[in-house]
């Protein structure tokens, strides 16, 4: 071989070796210039030996304002039958129906199903099986399998094919506590009512699909899937517990059909407690229909609308003071009846109360006086004021299922001219308990209304973000608010109301509203209510109480006012609010 031949061979080898990188370069360019070329490969991916499945991350936790767990997750099992195994339907049906409390025939039918590859491979028997029950079943399966191995019988009884898959289900450690606020989560992971529904998307997290290779050679690190966001509520579990107990007691004592208590912080818009009856145990949400009958709302505080009655009067009076329609010197002579356009108004006792100051009107809760005040305000200012207080509008609370209520406005087809004299004392207008609490809170917060909310912080990505209070509006000035607060405090004091609390100055108003029916207002059934706040000079919380159709007495001053006192007496202790005199002394 001469040099020429050798060189030629090297050229051939070099050329052959160059082809491969050249092909690689061409392919790279081809992919770069036409990315669509890769699409068929990506589309074909699922058919490759990979398994794609949805990753269900733990649902975010819910805490109260002090960090007590209100909603967590627990392990439950799904029991089913893998149909590819050689099964014994009789044994499976007999054992599972006895252990899981399921119908024998249903299990037998499921266990007898024929296996069809890719179509009929699995039969579900029961979901949400508690851990203890699942452990017993696991032991039974193992025990029967062991006995079958030892048995000389040709077809020994065994539970081949029965499988248990662990899952996470919602758990509520406090059981019924704050159930109306929390809502519940179905087995499918869908939040229903309350916080669970309102924040379902972030609590549940984004569902992710993860591709797991079936070939162990291709297994790699799995993409981490973040869990759902956790929430810290403004609710205080201990306050909520006490408020629920007081409400339950009030219902027993008054014989009321149902009731609601809202404890609200006017300065921040935080809801400290919100009790509503009836309430379910969200751990057993399937009992819902047995407890909350018919179309009754899940949370009456936001889902039930009603005519509020006299607790509405402070709003009318506040508008009148704000626009200067009345002042502290204004005297109204009450003749016991007031007619305006198509409406005639009487006082609650049908009596005439003679000359009254505006404080007297509030103190004696005179419908006639308030009707006159509304006329002094005039249609335009009256309804504009009501809207500014948020009447007839959603409060925007972060709970699912809020109702709007109704404020008929001039121009509406069913509005009658002169209706404002009824609206003035809370008739002909429908509100939710939270709506009225939020509206009245303007009087306790220097005229400002904050957006009500139950979520005070969100925890996600390892960080806590606190939610700042948000101003919803300012329907009246701080001066009017303080004036109204003072008038209402004096009214209670002069009446020696049952709402008064020793050592603490409170402001508030009772309400007794007749219930509208298709044939007019009922006289024997009422909505009794009370709204008040404490301490008057620096309101820490506002309490709204609504008892529906009390039997012992129809009057708010008799059935609702003592409940307010009881709530305040409990809360000042739990919240460490000293009596006014001591507070003044300590602050010096």
């Amino acid at each position, binding site marked *: 071989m001469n040099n020429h031949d050798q060189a030629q061979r090297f050229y051939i080898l070099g050329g052959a070796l160059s082809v491969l990188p050249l092909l690689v370069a061409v392919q790279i*360019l081809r992919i*770069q*210039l036409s990315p669509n070329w890769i699409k068929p490969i990506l589309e074909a991916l699922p058919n490759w030996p990979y398994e794609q499945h949805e990753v269900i991350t*733990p649902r975010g*936790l819910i*805490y*109260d*304002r*002090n*960090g*007590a*767990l*209100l909603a*967590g*997750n*627990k*392990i439950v099992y799904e029991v089913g039958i893998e149909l590819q195994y050689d099964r014994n339907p009789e044994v499976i049906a007999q054992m599972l129906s006895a252990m899981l409390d399921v119908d024998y025939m249903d299990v037998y039918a499921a266990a007898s199903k024929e296996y069809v590859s890719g179509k009929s491979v699995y039969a579900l028997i029961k979901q949400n099986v508690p*851990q203890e029950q699942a452990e017993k079943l696991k032991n039974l399966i193992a025990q029967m399998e062991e006995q079958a191995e030892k048995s000389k019988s040709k077809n020994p009884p065994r539970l081949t094919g029965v499988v248990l898959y*662990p899952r*996470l289900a919602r*758990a509520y*450690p*406090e*059981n019924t*506590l704050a159930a109306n606020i929390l809502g519940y989560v179905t087995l499918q992971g869908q939040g229903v009512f309350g916080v669970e529904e309102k924040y379902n998307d972030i609590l549940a997290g984004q569902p992710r699909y993860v591709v*797991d290779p079936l*070939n*162990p*050679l*291709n*297994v*790699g*690190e*799995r993409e981490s899937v973040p869990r759902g966001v*956790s929430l*810290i509520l403004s609710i205080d*579990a*201990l306050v909520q*517990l006490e408020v629920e107990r007081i409400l339950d007691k009030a219902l027993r004592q008054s014989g009321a059909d149902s009731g609601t208590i809202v404890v609200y912080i006017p300065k921040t818009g935080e809801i400290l407690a919100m009790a509503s009856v009836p309430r379910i145990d969200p751990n057993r949400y399937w009992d819902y229909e047995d407890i909350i009958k018919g179309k009754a709302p899940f949370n009456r505080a936001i889902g039930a609308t009603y005519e509020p009655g006299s607790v509405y009067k402070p709003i009318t009076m506040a508008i009148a003071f704000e626009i200067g329609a009345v002042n502290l010197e204004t005297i109204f002579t009450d003749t016991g009846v007031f007619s305006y356009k198509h409406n005639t108004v009487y006082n609650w006792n049908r009596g005439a109360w003679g000359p009254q100051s505006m404080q007297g009107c509030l103190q004696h809760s005179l419908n006639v006086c308030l009707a006159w005040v509304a006329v002094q305000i005039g249609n335009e200012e009256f309804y504009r004021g009501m809207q500014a207080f948020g009447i007839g509008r959603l409060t925007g609370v972060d709970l699912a299922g809020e109702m709007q209520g109704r404020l008929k406005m001039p121009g509406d087809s069913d509005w009658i001219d002169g209706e404002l004299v009824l609206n003035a004392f809370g008739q002909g207008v429908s509100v939710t308990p939270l709506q009225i609490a939020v509206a009245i809170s303007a009087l306790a917060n220097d005229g400002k209304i904050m957006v009500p909310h139950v979520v*005070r*912080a969100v*925890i996600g*990505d*390892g*960080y*806590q*973000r*606190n939610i700042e209070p948000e101003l919803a509006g300012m329907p009246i000035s701080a001066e009017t608010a303080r004036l109204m607060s003072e008038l209402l405090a004096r009214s209670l004091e002069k009446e020696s109301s049952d709402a008064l*609390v*020793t*050592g603490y100055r409170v402001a508030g108003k009772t309400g007794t509203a007749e219930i509208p029916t298709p044939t007019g207002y009922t006289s024997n059934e009422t909505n009794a209510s009370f709204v008040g706040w404490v301490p008057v000079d620096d309101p820490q919380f506002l309490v709204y109480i609504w008892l529906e159709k009390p039997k012992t007495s129809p009057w708010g001053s008799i059935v609702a006012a003592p409940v307010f006192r009881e709530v305040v*007496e*409990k809360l*000042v*202790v739990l919240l*460490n609010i*000293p*009596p006014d005199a*001591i507070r003044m002394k*300590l602050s010096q």
Partner: protein
Amino acid sequence: MINEKTMEHHERMPPSYHPAPWRRQWQVIGLIGAVLVFVALVILIYMTVTARTASVGRQIQKMQAFIEAADRRIEDLRSTLGQLYSVQAMEKRAFALGYQYYEVDQAIYLRLPGYYAADDAILAPLGRVEVVPARSLPPEYTESVITWLQRTLTRLFAEIWGSQP
């Protein structure tokens, strides 16, 4: 003297001997044996690596299953703990220990220097430090040729004429 022609002729002469046939056979057998050993080595290495990879893959799958089970257990235990610390359970325990609620008229308020009431729950670091994601690779490594060309030309045009084409 050997002239150039004689030299050339000598170079073109075939060798005057051949290796013994048995030697050739041994050479071929040896060569084939060497190839077989090489192939066997490659197969052995491949199979060892593959088996170890598969084994590690199975371990990873097991660990993933373990992590999932552990996560579920943690969630479950957290709820159990929540139940043990629930306000109703704590109240029962307090009563059992002889405690009772004090009424509003029983409260005595004192000024305690240095005492601060417990804050509301802070269960995670507050806020979030915003970290601007730093690019680990220059864009040339992640963009297509067309995007790169477009970007480069845009930049060039901007540099030359002070505006985009």
